[in-house]
């Protein structure tokens, strides 16, 4: 048995869910970023897998999207971590449960 698209999708779904778990259930802000990175990576895996299993030949759109998404994820990580640092400087905490100034 060679891996099929289904298998890749399941792997990526699992990775996505793990990322979601990290983003939803951990209290440290950096964990949320880690989770988001994992979710993005899962999406990239989907793009590449769909590209690979699509009828050939075709333009490498999936690969391109993945490349762009990696670039955007890098920017996202940089900004997100900068935010974490400046939030930490301001509030002296990185616990997202304490960062609830927007509480209604």
């Amino acid at each position, binding site marked *: 048995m060679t891996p099929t698209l289904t298998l890749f999708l399941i792997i990526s779904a699992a990775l996505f869910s793990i990322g*979601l778990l990290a*983003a*939803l*259930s951990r209290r440290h802000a950096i964990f*949320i970023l880690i989770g988001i990175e994992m979710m993005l990576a899962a999406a990239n895996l989907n793009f590449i897998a769909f590209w690979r299993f699509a009828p050939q030949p075709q333009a490498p759109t999936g690969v391109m999207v993945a490349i762009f998404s990696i670039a955007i994820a890098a920017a996202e990580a940089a900004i997100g971590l900068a935010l974490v640092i400046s939030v930490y400087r301001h509030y002296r905490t990185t616990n*997202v*449960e304490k*960062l*609830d*100034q*927007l*509480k*209604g």
Partner: protein
Amino acid sequence: MTSWILAHLWLIPAAPLAMSLLILGLAGSRPRTGSALAIIGQVVALGLAVVAFVPTLETPGFRTFQNFTWFTFGEQALRIGWVLDPLAAAMLVMITFVGLWIFVFSTGYMAGDKNFSRFFAYLSFFSAAMLGVVIANSLLLLFVCWELVGLASYLLIGFWIHKPSAAAATKKAFITTRIGDIGLFLGILWLYGGSGTLLFYDGGNGCLEKTGLLALGASASFIALLIFSGAAGKSGQFPLHVWLPDAMEGPTPVSALIHAATMVAAGVFLVARMYPLFSFGALDGVTPSLTVVVWIGVVTALMGALIAVAQADIKRILAYSTISQLGLMMVSLGVGGVAAGIMHLLAHGFFKALLFLGSGSVIHGCHHEQDIRKMGGLRRIMPVTFLAYAIGMMALSGVPLLFSGAWTKEEILHATAHWPRSPVPYYLMMAGVVLTALYMTRQMICVFFGKPREAAERAHESPSVMTIPLIVLAVCTIALSAVLTPAWPWLHSYLTGEPAQFDLGRLIQPMLFVSLALVAAGIGLGILFYRNAGRDDPLARSQPLLFRFLENKMWLDELYAKTVIAWSAMFSKLSDWMDRHIWDGLARTIGGAGQLIGIVSANFDERGINAGVDESAAGTRGLGRLIAARHSGRIQTYMGVIAVGMLALLVLYAWLT
């Protein structure tokens, strides 16, 4: 060369625009560089305008345009372009030429101002925007440039922003013209909806050409009126004229630019440009929209002239004179004398610039005093300014034969006399001409004759950088009349595309005598009334009530303050009141009801009737917490909700497919 300029017409506005950006970028602390760059840009634009002017001379009725697609959305494509015809070419030359001399004048007038180079950047920008209006072959492009003109005027009128009056004036100008622009914008939308194109000329498919106009049908009149409301705002037509006198708060070269070459000309130009739309379906040269234009113009012309009689500020008089003259142009356009109106616009551009620069020179000489009651006797002190100003005054009053304004005014009167609908505008126009001569005579006498009063005592002649533009414009004002006379109506035929014939016999026409009589009456009355006028005005002495009425601009500003502004203020107060009392009260009531429930349940609890009440109170609190928890401020909760929502969508999608 010719075809090159036709393909690169955009370079004309681009030159001052580029200079403007360059000045803003480079010449922050180097004022000489700023003014030099601005003048270079204007010279380039003038050169290009002259180059563009040449081909329009060769063929009568010349018209060429170049369109391209700006961007495409869906199946529609938004197309813009530029057009060159006698109307645009003549305007280009006038704007760049007059503008150039205003720029030169400004280097003297603004010398020493700390924002000197910024001023020139704005001037260049202003000029660029107006040139864009002129060459636009698309109502969209025209509208964009139109708004840029508005922006530039906003920046320039409020240039001395530290003066509260300037800040108020600039706001007023901006908002008033914006009211007209709403109409213009609606007209543009309607036009686009009706004809499917915003191009003026597109090889037969433009909105001013046969197909486009036929597609509009009966709605053309309404569209024309909406567009006219924009023109009225920019050109200071009644009842949107109120910004124009206040715009005098800007530096005098700005006033000259606004009144002569750029801003107010835009409205007249717009009507002239859209004339096919206005006159579409005309019976005997009369359409409903044109009738409105005529009456608005008449009211404006007469009102402006009347108010001008009672003003004391030298620039304000000129401002009301501009309003009056613009009304005149509008009347001319409305009665079908398009060429006459545009000719008057061009001639007015020259002599009004001359007058404004002259007044600038006077103000500069009198150490920034603007009240004519404090001047007098400047004839000897500032001879060059006096001569130039006198030429401008005579052109504006319409002294026949030598002065350009006379011929164009005469032609307008001629056109008005033949309007089939009603003779009233003609008579009112004649009254306006008399009044024009009257108030100009008054101004001349107060400023230049008699004995020097306090402001004029220490006056001095302006430096040559300011007088040379005056001389040039004065010469042009006289020279221009050569192509305006009925004997050789070259400009008229250039604009209409008919061949011009030289016939000295037509020089003297009956209308000339009418005009002569009117002007003589105006000047004569002026001399009679004001020959001894000094500090106090004879009119104020004999008719104090009328004078006060006119001095206070017919209380139009106050009327607006009492009506439109008061309504809007009332409405906002009403909203505020509603917000404070009704909505807030509603919220408070609900909150109060909640509090009441709390108090009641607390009371029950206090009295300790039974544990069940305790329970229900706790339940209420729990419910409150549950609702508040939705706004926990916790990002993870939000993300969780998003995830659940995504999941629901996913399942729903899979379910449905």
